[in-house]
């Protein structure tokens, strides 16, 4: 049983992003989702700084410091793109016009509470950015993250221990072991890595799990991490 790497998690989430969607991809693992969107699907990537329709990263010779995304990466524009100011961009987020926000997380609770902005690092200032706006107001919030911490502690919990980003907001979680829906009755496993059984997954999870009657194996193509990648 080989857990997915983070690019495979991103690939899996990308398969559920459908034609015509307006999507926001958070910093870190979520921005890599763009590389695995189905080419036939017409999808607009919204970035908090007002870019509606960010295209692939700019090549070094085309990079422009005025054309950046919310992670300060130099990007391009796709056909049909537009750029608005920050207040309009967040009005779109708060107004429920973003179909899906794919966000990273430290912890997700069984009721959908999300903790993804403050790890309580000593001597470091806070950084909230647009995390709370997206978590509270995107029409659907999907989380992609490793199932457990590097020390092996579960990240899916009955209640978050870290400061919350938003309450009851997460709809779905993609991890290296499973795809889990957050339902009014708690966590429902939709897909699970082949070679794991229900007991194994429960051992790695800090909240009760239900298994969908049609729970499927979680399958992705092999994707190599870049050489020298710390993860």
């Amino acid at each position, binding site marked *: 049983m080989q857990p997915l790497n983070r690019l495979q998690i991103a690939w899996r989430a990308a398969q559920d992003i459908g034609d015509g969607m307006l999507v926001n991809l958070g910093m870190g693992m979520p921005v890599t989702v763009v590389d695995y969107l189905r080419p036939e699907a017409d999808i607009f990537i919204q970035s908090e700084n007002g870019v509606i329709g960010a295209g692939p990263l700019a090549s070094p010779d085309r990079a422009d410091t005025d054309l950046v995304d919310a992670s300060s990466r130099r990007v391009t524009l796709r056909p049909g793109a537009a750029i608005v100011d920050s*207040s309009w961009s967040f009005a779109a*987020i708060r107004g429920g016009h973003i179909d899906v926000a794919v966000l990273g997380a430290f912890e997700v609770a069984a009721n959908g509470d999300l903790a993804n902005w403050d790890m309580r690092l000593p001597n470091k*200032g806070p950084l909230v950015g647009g995390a709370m706006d997206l978590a*509270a107001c995107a029409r659907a919030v999907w989380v992609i993250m490793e199932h457990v911490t590097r020390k092996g502690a579960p990240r899916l919990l009955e209640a978050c221990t870290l400061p*919350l980003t938003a*309450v009851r907001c997460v709809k779905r979680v993609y991890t290296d072991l499973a795809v889990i829906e957050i339902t009014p009755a708690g966590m429902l496993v939709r897909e699970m890595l082949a070679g794991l059984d229900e007991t194994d997954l429960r051992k790695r999870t800090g909240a009760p799990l239900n298994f969908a009657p049609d729970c499927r194996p979680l399958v992705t193509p092999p994707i190599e991490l870049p050489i020298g990648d710390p993860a």
Partner: protein
Amino acid sequence: MPIDKRAGSAAEALADVSDGATVLISGFGGAGFPNILIRALRDRGPKNLTLVVNSAVHRYSFTHELIEAGLVRKVVCTAARGHSKEPSPFERLWIEGKIELECVPQGTFAERIRAGGAGIPAFYTPVGFGTDLAQGKEVRNFDGRDCILAQAIKGDLALVRADTADRYGNLAFRYAQMNFGPVMATAATLAVVEVRTVLDEPMPHERVQLPGFYVDRVVAVGT
């Protein structure tokens, strides 16, 4: 007298900024930082400033120079975490209790400034409810959703970066330069804008992204 908002230099445009001013500074992710104006403000040296700026620590912004020069009493921002493991100059002052910090979700930050320029004293938003950033805030339920009260932000001075202006103060931005610039210009008593170039002719109306009546002074910086 014909309208002419062109100032001869950044120093001239900021000559009447006083101690205790609230200064709104545009820019996000490398785009739209008014770095020439920021440095001119540092050289002028007004004390006890309150900065309203998306990031207190962004590596491409000169905002940190105002903080390091000891001119800043308080920062209202969405990001205050330095890039390295060692605390940044801002973080050190904050840990030592020498600078006040108000951390705001970015959409609430932008909307509070928009409200400041739009005559809305306060508004309710669902963003932040149930989090540490809602502590002490008034809560009210609308349509089954808990919301918190956010108050408008106004400034004495806005420092904004745009690409092109004309003598009326009409502005055009390049790509994502816009970010907080338009709302900051609307919310400040004095809006000063640095631009790459000032046109000799009036800007064609379809290019204008912020009408000139919001802008008080423009400084052409050539780059």
